[in-house]
């Protein structure tokens, strides 16, 4: 746990939001100024003892989307500069967001949102989502593995059908799980 990990989630959220809003407010022809934030971000990454390789790999996953979206700006007068500036700006924003995501847990975030008076149903949904998403992901993976183990013939029609019916079954299991969770919560005096 580094000092960046220990800092309060509200502070981190506020600082990164301020940086991102500042970058978004840069006019198109000054977008290159956004690169000034890069040393600051790298310093934070160093303080948080994050590996640069992991950071770069995660960034490279998101970069193609940025490239695709900013290439749309190419088709206007003086478009090439605008598109490049846009890409630089959004790449810095993506890096900021990744630093925030890798130093803040979702539980801290939910607590911060509750303190910011976000309505209770949304906070509850977020907390439950964080708790159960890895569980359901694993379940989906198991179901698909079981299906591919049993399906010997492979065709596009079968692939789609297996995908859809597996997801349908996953929803039915989800509802059953929700009923169990609800009765467990009731049994302990909650809700």
């Amino acid at each position: 746990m580094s000092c960046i990990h220990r800092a309060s989630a509200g502070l981190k959220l506020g600082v990164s939001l301020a940086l991102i809003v500042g970058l978004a407010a840069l006019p198109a022809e000054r977008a290159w100024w956004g690169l000034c934030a890069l040393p600051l971000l790298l310093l934070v990454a160093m303080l948080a003892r994050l590996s640069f390789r992991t950071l770069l790999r995660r960034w490279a996953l998101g970069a193609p989307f940025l490239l695709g979206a900013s290439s749309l700006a190419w088709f206007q007068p003086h478009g090439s500069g605008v598109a490049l500036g846009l890409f630089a700006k959004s790449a810095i924003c993506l890096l900021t967001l990744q630093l925030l995501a890798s130093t803040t847990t979702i539980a801290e975030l939910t607590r911060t949102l509750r303190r910011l008076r976000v309505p209770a149903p949304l906070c509850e949904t977020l907390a439950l989502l964080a708790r159960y998403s890895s569980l359901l992901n694993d379940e989906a993976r198991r179901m698909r593995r079981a299906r591919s183990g049993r399906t010997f013939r492979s065709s596009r029609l079968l692939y789609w059908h297996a995908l859809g019916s597996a997801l349908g079954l996953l929803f039915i299991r989800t509802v059953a799980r929700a009923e169990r969770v609800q009765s467990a919560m009731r049994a302990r005096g909650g809700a």
Partner: protein
Amino acid sequence: MHIPDGFLSARVALGYAGLSSLGLGAACYRLRAQRDRGASALLGVSAAFVFAAQMVNFPVAAGTSGHLMGSALAGALLGLPGALLVMTAVIIMQCFVFADGGVFALGANVFNMGLVGCVVGFCCYRLLCGAAPSPTRRVASVAFAGWCATLAGALSCAGQLSLSGTARLSVVLPAMLGVHALIGVGEAVISSLIVASVLRFRPELLETSAQTPLTARPRRSAIYAGLGLSLAIAALLAPIADAAPDGFSRVTQALGLHSTTSAPSLAPFSHGIPGVASGVLATLLAGCVGTLLLFGLCWLLALALVPRPRSSEPSRGVAVEPSG
């Protein structure tokens, strides 16, 4: 369709954040007014389900792949306020955990995929379904609603990008709509497959989603509703294609961008089908025909997926054992 940070101007981002927090507040108020505490766990775990379902990629065409958006599906399964809450939670989670979609653009993303997707998806579904629908009609409605929701989300996303002065509407609108018309087909197929298997194993789950007591209408009304919806979609698209450059150039002037010297023209829309006088009319016609074609395909898909009640041979369409 997740807009990253840096693509929206501050004005657009804040405006859409305000709009989507209004919608979210209304949904929370509605859920609290229902006092249905039993639903809180269902919403949370369903959000995890949508999240897991979005992880699964399906091939679209020629090596590209798309994934489920799920707002129409959530609308059909959970009702409108619940679906809105679930989609918002999923989008927030994607933003903060996977850096998919920006923090500053969160309001706009929730607006596109949550508010617009759920409202359009749910309204299409309910309009096509009517009261006491047959399984075939339900599956066809979900499929068409999924396609409409995807397209509506893409439309609103293109509007935001062009309002921010990021790209011209004439470029971004055909690009977004073209790609998402294909992704929407995938969405329609997956949603209808999911609903078909829910209908097979636990049909009561679909009955509970707040059916308003309408008089039972004949099956033909679904066709009329589909026709009306297609016309509405096409009619909505055409004026946007026509009127938007004005708004765009006004915004660029207001922001001090220097692209106003050459007025943006809608090249793909101004040269219409030969024989049809106006470009707007041609767009309207093309959109109408495409949407109708898709509606027919959705109905055929539903006919293929839902087994006939009296057929002796078990169809392979839904032959899957519940043990998974």
